[in-house]
């Protein structure tokens, strides 16, 4: 009988019958796959034939001079910008170019913006509550109540991000670093498969940076994490694999040591004269 029932399960028969909200298929390794993606704004090619593959559970750093297309790349992955051409796949099953922002978010891609954006009028607890993966349609949201399971989950994330003592404070009074952690906490509440983190340590003190590095490395493995960062010291402290973007496409890829000894990379940074820190590295 149960065998018969198993035949009626659509998701077990043909891959193309699988409903869109099904889990991500990472059997083939990569969780994110960009192929030949291009986009231009008013004739300026912000992204030019970009190819990028992120493996499941990987922690990847992306560096590049200003205007290399790092933020545009994140916009494309999260559905904010549509590329002119190319393919963007999440796992082997989900074509991100056919989805809008909330769909992509509920699929398990979380994004942290460059400038910390938390809901300043709401408390730390409420910020995390809103971020939690749940039924996000109108009526379920209206009637949603607080359960011990939710409290426990929020408690866990508070602990991970070190914000337990600030649980009922409005997010608006947090320090810059605390806001960054709260925002990472909000991403964790979504139980994402892939975290996109844009310049997490901008404006942080040395100690805050160390804490952030610990936090991000502890996340990798459970989630895939993509970090865009300018601060080379920070990148060196967390990265296992680094991708260098330049003029909208990949210039080099490899370990930090490989990258910093790559003549092309050195030349780009020297020629563009943008990031002195890279030269130092």
């Amino acid at each position, binding site marked *: 009988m149960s065998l018969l029932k198993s035949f009626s399960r659509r998701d077990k028969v043909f891959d193309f019958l699988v409903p869109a909200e099904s889990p991500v298929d990472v059997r083939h390794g990569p969780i994110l796959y960009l192929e030949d993606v291009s986009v231009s704004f008013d004739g300026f090619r912000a992204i030019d034939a970009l190819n990028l593959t992120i493996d499941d559970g990987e922690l990847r750093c992306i560096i590049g001079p200003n205007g290399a297309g790092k933020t545009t790349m994140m916009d494309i992955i999260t559905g904010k910008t549509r590329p002119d051409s190319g393919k963007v796949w999440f796992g082997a099953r989900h074509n991100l170019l056919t989805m809008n922002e909330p769909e992509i978010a509920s699929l398990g891609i979380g994004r942290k913006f460059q400038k910390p954006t938390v*809901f300043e009028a709401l408390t730390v607890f409420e910020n995390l509550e809103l971020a939690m993966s749940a039924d996000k*349609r109108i009526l379920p*949201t209206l009637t949603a109540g607080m359960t011990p399971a939710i409290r426990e989950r929020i408690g866990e994330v508070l602990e991970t991000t070190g914000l337990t003592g600030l649980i009922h404070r409005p997010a608006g009074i947090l320090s810059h670093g605390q806001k960054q952690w709260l925002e990472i906490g909000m991403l964790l509440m979504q139980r994402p498969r892939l975290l996109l983190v844009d310049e997490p340590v901008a404006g942080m003190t040395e100690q805050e940076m160390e804490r952030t590095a610990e936090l991000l490395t502890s996340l990798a493995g459970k989630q895939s994490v993509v970090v865009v960062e300018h601060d080379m010291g920070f990148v060196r402290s967390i990265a296992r694999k680094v991708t260098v973007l330049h003029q909208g496409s990949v210039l080099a890829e490899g370990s930090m040591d490989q990258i910093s000894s790559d003549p092309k990379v050195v030349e780009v940074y020297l020629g563009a004269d943008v990031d002195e820190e890279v030269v130092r590295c």
Partner: protein
Amino acid sequence: MQWLGRPFTERSTLIFLGVLFSALVLVTVLHVAVPQGHPLYVSAYTVNLLGKYLAYALLAVAVDLVWGYLGILSLGHGAFFALGGYAMGMYLMRQIGDRGVYGHPVLPDFMVFLNWDSLPWYWQGFDMAWFAFLMVLLAPGLLALVFGFLAFRSRVTGVYLSIITQALTFALMLAFFRNEMGFGGNTGLTDFRDMLGFDLRSSDTRLGLFIATGVALALGYVLCRAIVTSKLGRVCVATRDAEARTRFLGYRVERFQLFVFVVSAMLAGLAGALYVPQVGIINPSEFAPLFSIEIVLWVALGGRATLYGAVIGALLVNYAKTVFTGVMPDAWLFALGGLFVLVTVFLPKGVAGVLAYRIRRRRRDGDLSGGKEAMA
């Protein structure tokens, strides 16, 4: 249903309901039990005026719901108020029956005057109270649904949305001014006789309408409070402060905006429907952009994003308006403008902000003195 009960666990809601119901009882007692001529006697005129203020207060609550919590500054809520009013006006017109000036059994006077020989299709059914009362909610709700769907889907927000809501109410005003629309042109609908069998001119009916408006205000307040204290309310506040972030959390922001906008429009319609039988007329001037801006002023004065602030603002400004237009009619607009400037500069959180500050301070002082006593 847990979400509907949540407001009753809040102190501010209980205080609000307590004050409102005591006021209703007090006015009723002073009107009914105190003999005329006694200094404490509340006249039928005053009861009527207070009923009008309460309808305005409900309208202000509706505006505060979208402006205070969702960040949508609607400068066209007068349109929903007027539509609700017209739906009620159509019912009251049909109730006149053959007692009109021309004595036509079905057609309202202005249609006879225009030589129309039958009722337009959209006037059908308004002789039935249940249908008309349903339309009081559905007509503004439907307009808000279509308008909001188009606006929010295209992500029109901020000042652009304010401008098109203003255009919406202005366009409706021009349309309703036309005799061909079939809503009485610039005279509007008036000369009402009775409602649900009660004579609208009797003071008992007026008292009844006053109490009904008070109850509607209480219900509307509790509903809005239930919405803003739910998780949905927090999504609204999140949308107000960081719309893009909310979208990336997986909320379909435009649907939440639409939902709250429609609820607000329905409440505004209900306020209009309670207003019309009390003032005895509905005409296109209710669609005037200036009126919609005035509503926003009430809310700003009372204090945004508190709901009770909107009620305080509506009552204060309209009381001041009654006094001022009686004493110095020409000075009223200057007084209103001056008041608005003063409030924005000195009380950015409105009257409610001052109240909340005082209460917080008193509570803190109380805690301190309590601590001293404990130490002693």
